[in-house]
């Protein structure tokens, strides 16, 4: 349902993505892996409209998505947990979460979702009055994840969610992702922890130098093969 065809994008004169075409299936978890600097984050930013396309198009259910301003993405059911967390540093943890449900349709459910977020990450409940800017790295990562879920998105895009999380919480996180998938959500996951990602993914894309180097059902991909491909480049 979410499709990218021949997408080219980058920063100013520098091009990062070269004619990338992807297709995401509803209710599936698509993992995007690739070396550092391959353009994974750039790809996600392009989907969310944070970066203009230089060429190609993105469609959602057959309708043009590119050109839609980022703030309308929530209306279309998309949410992103960005790399580097991007929490609202000057607002409290609770406020960060509440803003996550900014969209009119979600406002009535704030209280319930807040509770769910605290259930998911009890540490956030303890810190709910603290300014997000003073959280530790991992706490901020939890906040970013929880905030992304506040809008109950149909399509969830997550950029390296395990970054900076302690082992216990990494387990938690993958549990959460699996649960979200089981609830029928579509998930796009960029993750460096390839092994864990493969374990829950339905489909895997390998991005290399801004191009799609592999597109396979996750079941057919082994870690060894991926690593082999990494080095071929």
């Amino acid at each position, binding site marked *: 349902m979410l499709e990218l065809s021949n997408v080219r994008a980058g*920063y100013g004169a520098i091009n990062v993505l070269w004619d990338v075409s992807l297709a995401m299936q509803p209710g599936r978890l698509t993992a995007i892996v690739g070396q550092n600097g391959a353009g994974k984050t750039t790809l996600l930013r392009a989907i969310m409209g944070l970066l203009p396309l230089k060429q190609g198009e993105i469609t959602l259910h057959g309708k043009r998505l590119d050109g839609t301003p980022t703030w309308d993405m929530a209306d279309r059911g998309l949410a992103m947990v960005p790399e*580097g967390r991007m929490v609202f540093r000057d607002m409290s943890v609770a406020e960060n979460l509440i803003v996550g449900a900014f969209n009119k349709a979600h406002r009535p459910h704030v209280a319930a979702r807040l509770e769910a977020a605290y259930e998911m990450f009890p540490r956030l409940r303890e810190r709910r009055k603290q300014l997000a800017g003073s959280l*530790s790295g991992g706490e901020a990562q939890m906040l970013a994840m929880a905030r992304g879920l506040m809008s109950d998105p149909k399509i969830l895009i997550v950029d390296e969610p395990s970054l900076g999380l302690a*082992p216990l919480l990494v*387990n938690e996180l993958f549990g959460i992702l699996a649960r979200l998938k089981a609830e029928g959500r579509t998930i796009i996951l960029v993750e*460096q922890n390839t*092994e864990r990602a493969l374990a829950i993914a339905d489909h895997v894309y390998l991005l290399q130098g801004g191009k799609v180097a592999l597109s396979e059902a996750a079941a057919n991909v082994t*870690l060894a093969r991926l690593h082999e491909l990494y*080095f071929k480049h």
Partner: protein
Amino acid sequence: MLELDRLTVRFGGLTAVNAVSLRMDGSGVLGLVGPNGAGKTTLFNAISGLVKPTAGAIRFDGRDVMRAPMHKRAHLGIGRTFQIPQPMHELTVRENLVVAQRFGTGKVDMARIDEILDFTSLAGKARRDAATSLALTELKALEVAKALATNPRLLLLDEVLAGLETSGKRRFMGMLKEMQQRFGVGIVIIEHDIETISSLCPRVAVLNFGELIADGTPDEVFRDPAVIKSYTGAGTGDGHA
């Protein structure tokens, strides 16, 4: 070399670092692990002078550096990276290193800068316009490169390996080991991946709720029930396939 004596940092009612005493001699690699929010970054901040400890003492080479300003500590040989990378945005990658070297050591040695750039795989990006245009992992490499350029004797690395894909991580670890041997730098590294820590550090210290709960070889430490309970979780957490 580094000696922490009952170091305590409080933020309002919250004790982020609680009476931590820790010694580190010579040029080892010390792994610092602990759950999220355990106080690891705060400990680094206290050592490098970014936050003011509430109580305790920090000695470096026997000198009390509790009150020394940040740049003084850098001159003494304490280098650090930031968990959220903080490049000098307006400068090119190379200029970032020039500043670090010139003000950290007092002189500029281009050969050494090239060496560091190679070392951190940044040589290709050195001439790019501004440090802003780097991907996250490149920024982390730049953090390390900057710290190295100051010729530190103690290097505090805050999650520099996180987010690297496996091959990159392996290369980076090799680099750290080599660095530690070649330049005789003492390294304290924060890292969540147990496999990485185990293979890199002969000694691991564990923080939990600001307190030091374990200190020893990786085998000892990761078998400690308290550590398993608070950090790794029973039977999981090992990255082995």
